[in-house]
């Protein structure tokens, strides 16, 4: 921001800047922490293999009003041939009672590596999609979702 010294209201500008900065940090904070349960579930899937970033695209609305039904789409860049295809797509979340959301198993004849579903989110959190390719490599993408009305986990 290039707030000149002759600017009309520097204090107002500073306040806005501070507010924006605070908003950003409070959003970024949970993104760094991956909950232990989610980490454990992911490790159970991939073992010691490295998880690469890219290829996978996880689409979720950034803000949802109702956590009881959240549209989710995972697509993976892949030619879907016998030699190079997506074998499975796994979806994990951070703060629901269980870290696993779903696992989808594809065949090369799927033609296009993309699946959609509707999920529940118990809180604002990070969702992660991991794709396992035919050659055994793992690729991932994640998305942060803000939930204003959580899925009724408590009743």
């Amino acid at each position, binding site marked *: 921001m290039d707030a000149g010294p002759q600017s009309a209201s520097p204090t107002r500008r500073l306040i806005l800047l501070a507010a924006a900065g605070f908003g950003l940090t409070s959003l970024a904070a949970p993104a760094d922490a991956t909950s232990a349960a989610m980490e454990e579930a992911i490790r159970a899937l991939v073992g010691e293999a490295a998880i690469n970033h890219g290829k996978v695209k996880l689409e979720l609305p950034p803000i949802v009003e109702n956590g009881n039904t959240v549209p989710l789409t995972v697509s993976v860049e892949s030619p879907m041939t016998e030699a190079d295809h997506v074998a499975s797509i796994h979806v994990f979340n951070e703060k629901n009672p*269980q870290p696993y959301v779903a696992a*989808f198993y594809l065949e090369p004849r799927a033609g296009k590596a993309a699946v959609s*579903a*509707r999920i529940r989110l118990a809180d604002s959190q990070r969702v992660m999609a991991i794709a396992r390719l035919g050659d055994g490599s793992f690729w991932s993408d994640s998305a942060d979702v803000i939930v204003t009305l959580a899925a009724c986990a408590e009743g």
Partner: protein
Amino acid sequence: MARVLINLPARAKRGEVIEIKTLIAHPMETGYRVGPTGTAIPRDIINRFVCTYNGAEVFRAELFPAIAANPFIAFFTVATESGELAFSWTDDHGETQTEVRQITVE
């Protein structure tokens, strides 16, 4: 028998990638909710979905309580030959509901 909606093209060209959308009426009770008497409502979800194309499995999903009620699943497959697509949902009681749809490939 639960109500099912399945959306797929009735006709397709050979080799065409078609999208299949499925939805089944089911409460997907998570097992984490408490009923009016204070006891937990037992878990009752559809945990498995399979799609076969003329007998060969083309898509399978394992579902967990984090899937919303009335589970909706959409996926793709290549239209290889005329025939039938069978869709099966299996719940926690081991009961399976299967629906069959025809497709004409030209």
